[in-house]
């Protein structure tokens, strides 16, 4: 069964200055997240990937469409079922410093959800539970970290703490929003490995939001990738297949822009990008037809007129007239 299903959701924000203007951050989006599945969501900044993550977690209520958790509409959940959803879907944030209260020790911050939700009866039980999770995420010995304040820890350690916090309420799905982009290079892989280990061990699904295709491929190795552009899905496929054989012209450009460390391949990098313009269009005044057409090298008359629908091609979904 799918842990979560997103059906035709849309999320628009009001422009505070001009009430007539709507900022459509996510438009007509469909996605189902299976049990134990890892989905990587990639796209440029401003493409709506974080908004999508926040809709999944329930921080934003979508303005259109519905979010189903274990087959039930989240909006209609009440009491225990609603609590089950809020605990079952957790989030790991990008900025680990901002995500922890600077005035509280790690133990104070992390024991609160356990006590509040009666996962632990008292403080000593909470301590036992947290000790277990800290060992699991590689923070040894736990006592050394639990009594510290966030500023006393390094970025990599704080990110592990956030993961332990998310894990401590036994979620079914974790939305990780750029969890390693502020972590040092040498520690990134260790965190990604930790996430895939948790995925296998506890069968937790992950939605991994990033703009770094290298880490997306690393973590979602056997999962799917979703490419977003201006709030819409441009392409969705098994990640290996998608990277070997990208369909959408935007995804092709994204892949071509990824730098290559190997000096043997450095000449391949940055010869020319298959794009007509490098700047993202304005999200308020979006282009007509296909939202990508002002930048697309394949653009023709139909692209300006008609927005392409998602079509199934070779097992994946692509929204482009020219594929």
């Amino acid at each position, binding site marked *: 069964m799918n842990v979560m299903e997103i059906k035709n959701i849309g999320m628009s924000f009001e422009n505070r200055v001009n009430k007539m203007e709507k900022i459509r951050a996510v438009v007509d989006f469909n996605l189902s997240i299976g049990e134990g599945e890892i989905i990587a969501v990639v796209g440029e900044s401003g493409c709506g990937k974080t908004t999508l993550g926040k809709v999944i977690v329930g921080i934003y209520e979508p303005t259109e469409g519905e979010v189903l958790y274990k087959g039930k509409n989240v909006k209609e959940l009440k009491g225990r079922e609603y609590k089950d959803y809020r605990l079952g879907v957790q989030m790991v944030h990008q900025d680990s410093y901002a995500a922890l209260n600077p005035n509280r020790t790690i133990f104070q911050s992390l024991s609160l959800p356990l006590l509040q939700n009666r996962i632990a009866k008292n403080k000593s039980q909470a301590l036992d539970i947290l000790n277990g999770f800290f060992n699991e995420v590689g923070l040894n010995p736990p006592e050394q970290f639990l009594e510290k304040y966030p500023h006393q820890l390094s970025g990599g350690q704080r990110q592990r703490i956030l993961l332990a916090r998310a894990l401590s309420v036994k979620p079914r799905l974790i939305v990780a929003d750029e969890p390693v982009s502020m972590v040092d290079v040498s520690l*990134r892989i260790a965190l990604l490995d930790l996430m895939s280990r948790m995925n296998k061990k506890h069968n937790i699904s992950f939605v991994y939001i990033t703009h770094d*295709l290298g880490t997306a491929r*690393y973590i979602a190795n056997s999962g799917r990738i979703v490419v977003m552009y201006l709030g819409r899905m441009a392409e969705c496929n098994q990640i290996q297949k998608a990277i070997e054989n990208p369909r959408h012209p935007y995804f092709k450009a994204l892949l071509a822009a990824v730098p*290559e*460390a190997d000096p043997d*391949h450095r000449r391949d990098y940055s010869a020319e*990008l298959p794009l007509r313009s*490098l700047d993202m269009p304005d999200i308020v005044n979006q282009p007509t037809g296909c939202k990508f057409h002002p930048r697309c090298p394949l653009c023709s008359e139909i692209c300006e007129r008609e927005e392409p629908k998602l079509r199934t091609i070779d097992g994946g979904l692509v929204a482009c007239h020219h594929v």
Partner: protein
Amino acid sequence: MKPIIEVKNLSIDFKVKNGILRACDKISITINDGEILGIIGESGSGKSTFASGILNLVANPGVISEGQIIYHTKDGESVDLLSLSQREYSKYRWTHLASVFQAAQNALNPVLTIKDHFLETAWAHDSKIKREEVISKAKKIMKQVRLEERVLDYYPHQLSGGMKQRAIIALSLLLDPEILILDEPTTALDVITQWYIIDILRKIHNESGITMIFLTHDVSIIGSIVDRIGVMYAGQVVECGDVEDVFKNPSHPYTYGLMHAVPSLHDDISKRKAISGYPPDLLNLPDRCRFSERCMFYISGRCQGDKERTDKLYPVKEGWYSRCYLWREVLKL
């Protein structure tokens, strides 16, 4: 290759509550005329401090405690930049050595247009220069960084992150410097914008032959632009050499670890491996090799992490140095 800047034994200390923190420890590195030198290191490795050291702009409570920075001018003179007073040094900043600092997105003054930034900078160095002259120069450079002329009339908030970064690169080139220091110029930018900035920098380098020092933590971006690379760890240069040599066959275990820690699009995922542990606390350095706690040779007992022997660099071949005295073993990995 003619050297343009020689950094000799540069040490920078910060006085903090619990003692003295040495952010840069006896750094010696030579920068050749017309090359792109990459400095790679994680946060806290001292690369930004090193950049501000070259410019003699170390902020309090930091002080440059020892070292020399010899600058070889075009006329064949050699100047020790650190022996100059701040007033004398300011004749070199921007006109000879320019820099683009980290978080450049916030470096622009929000109440000035881009044009005002150009004028202010030009007048600060030469108060007699004509307005029209500066503006026509600015227009020329804006073209080089592929920004339209009308951007000159914009305020910073009207520009996207990538445009701001390009405007700042343009500003740094205003007084025709010979050396450009770029501190994390692509961090916090999207892949497409990142590609664009790199493309622009490379074209500027090809056209003018400007010397660049490129500081970053991103291993994959550096391989595609620099000629030579220096690797920093805990305030020291641990390896330095041609990018092809260092990337293909690292001679220091830290570099080896870094090269294998970055996931890319085409390699074998199972070969990726993280470096275990965390960087050392610079206030409590171990009485051993600084990398020893994370080094596979030390962990497996094949190396004792002798501190004295890591106090110098070992030549692997001409122009390629490693701080690891077991570099022959590392090369075999």
